[in-house]
């Protein structure tokens, strides 16, 4: 086919309006979320003392951190879905959840604790935490990648890693309502490792599926 012919064909297809990437991403996440939620409720479920736990600011802090991560990663991944976008200052957004966590660790240091620092960091559920966040995030990661395929990221692996953080943030929000380890030290360590793991999976998958 000659290039002039191709151009004529493309012009004939101009009537078709594509949806914005943000819309498709939101749709794909909404479609994937029930799978993760079902996985969560059939295996772990919300912790029984959740009503009292809600009065503990360190329990609530976990949600501030995980949701901040999910939202920041969503904003950055949408930015990166444009081919000419650079990461640059946008990466700073991802420091917001880390900053909230650091404040939490500082606050925890100020109040007297029953358990020594190492015991709080190691916690009781580290293995379940790693496994749960990683597994619950996989359906969401698949959804995020499907949504972002609608975009045109110049660096698919980076975009995939951010999609991993987005899904880890959402999966960690589910898991946080089950976990009895509320210390920000535990969150920073184990949620952090799980997020890094999912980001790595996302980078690997993204480098394949996000090429356009």
């Amino acid at each position, binding site marked *: 086919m000659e290039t002039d012919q191709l151009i004529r*064909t*493309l012009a004939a*297809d101009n009537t078709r309006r594509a949806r914005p990437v943000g819309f498709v991403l939101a749709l794909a996440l909404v479609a994937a979320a029930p799978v993760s939620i079902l996985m969560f409720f059939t295996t772990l479920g919300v912790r029984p003392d959740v009503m009292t736990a809600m009065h503990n600011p360190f329990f609530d802090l976990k949600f501030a951190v995980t949701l901040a991560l999910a939202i920041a990663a969503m904003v950055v991944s949408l930015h990166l879905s444009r*081919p000419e976008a650079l990461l640059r200052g946008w990466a700073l957004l991802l420091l917001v959840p880390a900053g909230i966590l650091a404040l939490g660790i500082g606050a925890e240091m100020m109040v007297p604790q029953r358990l020594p620092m190492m015991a709080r960091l190691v916690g009781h559920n580290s293995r379940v935490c790693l496994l749960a966040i990683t597994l619950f995030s996989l359906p969401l990661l698949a959804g995020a990648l499907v949504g972002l395929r609608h975009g045109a990221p110049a660096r698919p692996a980076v975009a995939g890693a951010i999609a991993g953080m987005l899904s880890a943030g959402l999966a960690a929000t589910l898991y946080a309502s089950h976990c009895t380890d509320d210390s920000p030290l535990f969150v920073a360590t184990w949620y952090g490792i799980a997020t890094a793991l999912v980001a790595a999976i996302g980078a690997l998958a993204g480098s394949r599926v996000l090429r356009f």
Partner: protein
Amino acid sequence: MHERADEWTDLMRRAISGDSAAYHRLLGAVTPVLRVAARRGLARAGQPLDQSEDIVQDILLAVHLKRHTWNTDAPFAPWLFAIARNKLIDALRRRGRRIFVNIDDFAETIPSEPAAETVPASEVAAQLQSLPARQRQVLQSIAVDSASIRDTATKFSMSEGAVRVALHRGLARLTAKLREQ
């Protein structure tokens, strides 16, 4: 340069708001620039220039299918060149891995300057054959026979809407196949 870039941005805005003639003009205007860039990229990578038109068509398809990622408040040229760079790198990587160039075969044909006339592209045409029959017929009718959507609909006794759908799906599928190869 700035005038040209402004003109592109203006044409693309009109294209996005539904002006197909403006879109046609825009694609026609950017193609020679993309062609020069593709040639330069191939030359720098020490690859034969006869693939430049395939790369140009690859870029045009990506521009078409990803144009919703262009922010209409931003200038068009940086977006276009980002797409072009991406596709060029992709193409060079792919060919670098798959094509075994025999130096003797090319020793005589490597031109010292880019050839003035364009070499025909072959990849889109080849992948066209692998499309489902309906999509291939619609694409060929519009591309090769330069039939309109309406004429194509009459020819295949389809509705115009069905022709549009087949056209769009065919282009999307073609692009996916080019990426996978």
